[in-house]
């Protein structure tokens, strides 16, 4: 019957939808929290390689050919000595003109080549300049990151100092105990949440650590921090407490 078929489809569809929703809830409920791993600061030296500027080399011009003059002198002498060889002289003059024309052409060609070479050198120079600017920008961003890191470190030290000032260790504290807590901060520097991430196993010790965070209540100095840096590194701060020292 048609009715029962459509009901069957409905039941199947409905169960599938609800199953999917439940599955999505069970799988995707816990949001990922990003753990801040605090590492020692290294000074990174980076070699910025810059190709040396290529210099456009101008080749000296070849010495002018003074064969023409010699020829002319020789021709004069010939004119003086033998006026009879008029025809031959004529022919020679013509040959001379031809050669002059040839020379003029080669000179022009050479000038053109020279100009091209100069343009090429100019292009090369501009390329190198843009590369140089890029390298400077990269260097600048690296420096910014390092400055951020330095600022973050100073704030970390501040947090560490405040917490250790306000920490009263219980008598049950032992050297090997360690409790890690996570502080949730807001941009005013106030602590809005304290959770114990890793317990030391001793309740009194854990409580003392929590109390230290509660006593501090607010890090006023964090207000001067740039919002970007705060969002990046100080929304959540994990702090490890252990009796020999307090480290961040």
């Amino acid at each position, binding site marked *: 019957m048609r009715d029962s078929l*459509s*009901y069957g*489809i*409905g039941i199947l569809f*409905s169960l599938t*939808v*609800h199953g999917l929703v439940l599955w999505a*809830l069970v799988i995707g*409920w816990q949001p990922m929290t990003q753990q801040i791993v605090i590492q020692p600061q290294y000074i990174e030296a980076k070699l910025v390689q810059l190709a040396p500027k290529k210099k456009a080399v101008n080749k000296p011009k070849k010495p002018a050919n003074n064969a023409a003059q010699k020829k002319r002198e020789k021709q004069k002498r010939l004119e003086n000595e033998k006026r009879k060889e008029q025809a031959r002289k004529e022919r020679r003059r013509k040959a001379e003109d031809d050669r002059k024309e040839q020379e003029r052409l080669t000179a022009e060609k050479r000038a053109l080549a020279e100009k091209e070479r100069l343009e090429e050198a100019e292009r090369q120079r501009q390329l190198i300049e843009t590369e140089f600017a890029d390298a400077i920008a990269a260097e600048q961003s690296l420096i910014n990151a390092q400055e951020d890191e330095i600022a973050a470190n100073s704030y970390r030290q501040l947090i560490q100092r405040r917490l250790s000032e306000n920490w009263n260790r219980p008598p049950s504290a032992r050297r090997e105990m360690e409790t890690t807590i996570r502080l949730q901060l807001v941009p005013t520097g106030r602590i809005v949440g304290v959770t*114990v991430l890793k317990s030391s196993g001793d309740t009194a010790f854990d409580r003392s650590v929590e109390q230290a965070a509660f006593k501090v209540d607010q890090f006023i100095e964090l207000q001067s921090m740039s919002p970007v840096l705060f969002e990046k590194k100080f929304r959540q701060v994990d702090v490890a407490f252990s009796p020999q020292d307090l480290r961040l």
Partner: protein
Amino acid sequence: MNEENLSILALIMNASVLVQAVMVILLVASVMSWVMIVQRGLFLNNAQTSFKLFEDTFWSGIDLADYYHELTEKAKEVGVTDGIENVFRAGFREFSRLSQSDKADPDAVMEGTDRAMRVALSREDEKLSINLPFLASVASVSPYIGLFGTVWGIMNSFRGLAMVQQATLATVAPGISEALIATAMGLFAAIPAVIAYNRYAAKVEALNSSYETFSDEFSSILHRQVHSR
């Protein structure tokens, strides 16, 4: 420090009995309303296409008596038929029966035919709007049920707060969180039901009016036939 598991499953499992009952009710309501949504959607679509098909055939100039016989044969085969063809068959059957008796008054014939069609129409109307009241109830009631669960859960968690000496947010937060799940489930059940109800109610309305239009047209055809004799 006890391990606090705030996953949604753990919250549901740790909820109080009443809140759990509310959640189960809402889950069942949601599942059922989805069954109705799909079933009604298929049914109404089917009704729309068959109405279009019927009208096309009806106005194509086919002989009405032949068409009536054809439809009756089909109805005998399938068993149950839905939609406009029932109206047509009821009207035509009544008309032919009444007009076969010799001393039939034309007005009486028309009256009987109209009545038969009206009955068939109201049957079809019932068939179309079956299950829609359920969707309407789910749509309007399930947010309230969810709210009830939430209020109850929050009440309980505040009572628990009164008992402890050192009150922190962490003492009430899980209770409130678990209570709010009930509201979320209520909304989850209600929203599709509201949408489907509105949509299907409009569809049923449109189908009904087209059925009525058809029956009027058919009646006028029969009227012409009766009075032209």
